[in-house]
């Protein structure tokens, strides 16, 4: 029998301190990955949703959650990956988008921009805000980002794809 001396909101607050291992300026709650914490007689079940199917950060995040809960003696705990509904960048908070921009990553547009296969969206440079940018590659250093260059300030930058 679990002593429910930790509330759902306390655990949520605690887990919100865990950064995204690939983009450490944002945390897993702001990214919309942390979906829920279910407290039952069997223990604490953290519901997490994967961003991209093959994202290697998921294993690290699961590990970080379990390690943090263990250090706070919150037990027994487990992490369950849920696929439905599928994660979308629309779940990212405005705060997270602002942090991404300050970090030099153009935040995702609303996923409705993603309807056509060859949608040609205007991505603003996160450094000088210019709309005069061009796509270098649809794929970047992680599955969630594309590579762009600003034609005005000439800086290359990453864009967090809308998904």
């Amino acid at each position, binding site marked *: 029998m679990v002593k429910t001396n930790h509330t759902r909101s306390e655990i949520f607050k605690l887990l919100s301190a865990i950064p995204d291992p690939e983009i450490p300026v944002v945390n897993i709650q702001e990214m919309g990955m942390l979906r829920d914490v279910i407290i039952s007689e069997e223990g604490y079940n953290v519901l997490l949703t*994967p961003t*991209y*199917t*093959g*994202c*290697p950060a998921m294993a690290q995040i699961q590990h970080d959650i379990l390690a943090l809960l263990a250090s706070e003696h919150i037990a027994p705990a487990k992490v369950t990956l849920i*696929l*439905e*509904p*599928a*994660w979308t960048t629309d779940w990212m908070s405005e705060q997270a988008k602002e942090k991404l921009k300050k970090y030099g990553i153009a935040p995702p547009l609303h996923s409705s921009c*993603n309807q056509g*296969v*060859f949608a040609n969206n205007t991505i603003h440079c996160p450094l000088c805000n210019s709309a005069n940018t061009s796509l*270098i*590659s*649809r*794929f*970047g*250093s992680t*599955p969630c980002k594309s*590579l762009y260059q600003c034609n005005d300030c000439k800086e290359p930058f990453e864009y967090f*794809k809308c*998904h």
Partner: protein
Amino acid sequence: MTEQQALYKYCTQLGDNALIQSYRLAEWCSRAPILEEDLALTNMALDMTGRAQLLLQYAGQLAGKGQTEDDLAYRRSEPEYSNSLIMELPDDDFAFTMVRQLLTSTFEYFLYSALTSSTDKTVAAIAAKAVKEAKYHMAHTTDWVIRLGDGTDESSRRTQQALNKLWPYTEELFETDDAHKMLLAAGIAADVNKIKASWSEHINATRTAAKITMPSDDYQHSGGTRGIHTEYLGHILSEMQYLQRAYPDAKW
């Protein structure tokens, strides 16, 4: 065959297609013509690995024998693999990789679009993720095939050569068996006839823009989905499964 057995077969086939594609794409790591393309090919490989993991994990649950996705990936031999033959062909050059990926990603984009409304919730959830990724793969390879086909004489020659070689493996993508038919009736599987119309339209439009002609030979290979493979799959598995075969149950 029960519906659950049919679904096991269906998910294994989709998972095997993703896994073998991932293997071929990953072979480009550090060998691509430009750095951006090295990233793109390995990104696509990673998407495929993730997709294979989800599908084989679900297949393992459906089989009910406690098999994990790793058991299915590392402990089945060639006749138990049901990927389409096109996935296992070795890459001749960059044009071959791009043409193959255009053919398969376009198929997968329409397939997973249809599967988002599957009556099986897990299949629909996996499809919802896969379709977004497939769309990027399709857009990326479409651009490249047009650029190569409508490029220099040499790039055009190689693109045409790749399509000639790959075309006889395309019909197999649209094959159906008893499992498909059972699942289609239950609203779980996608209707490949509808997918074929959309696929043909996109492939023809891209081919025309790339100034590449349709291969005249209409012979079509078949067998992968029934476990009859080319010699190449054995070579893939012997490398991919080496560690688990040599050291069973080894863990990271």
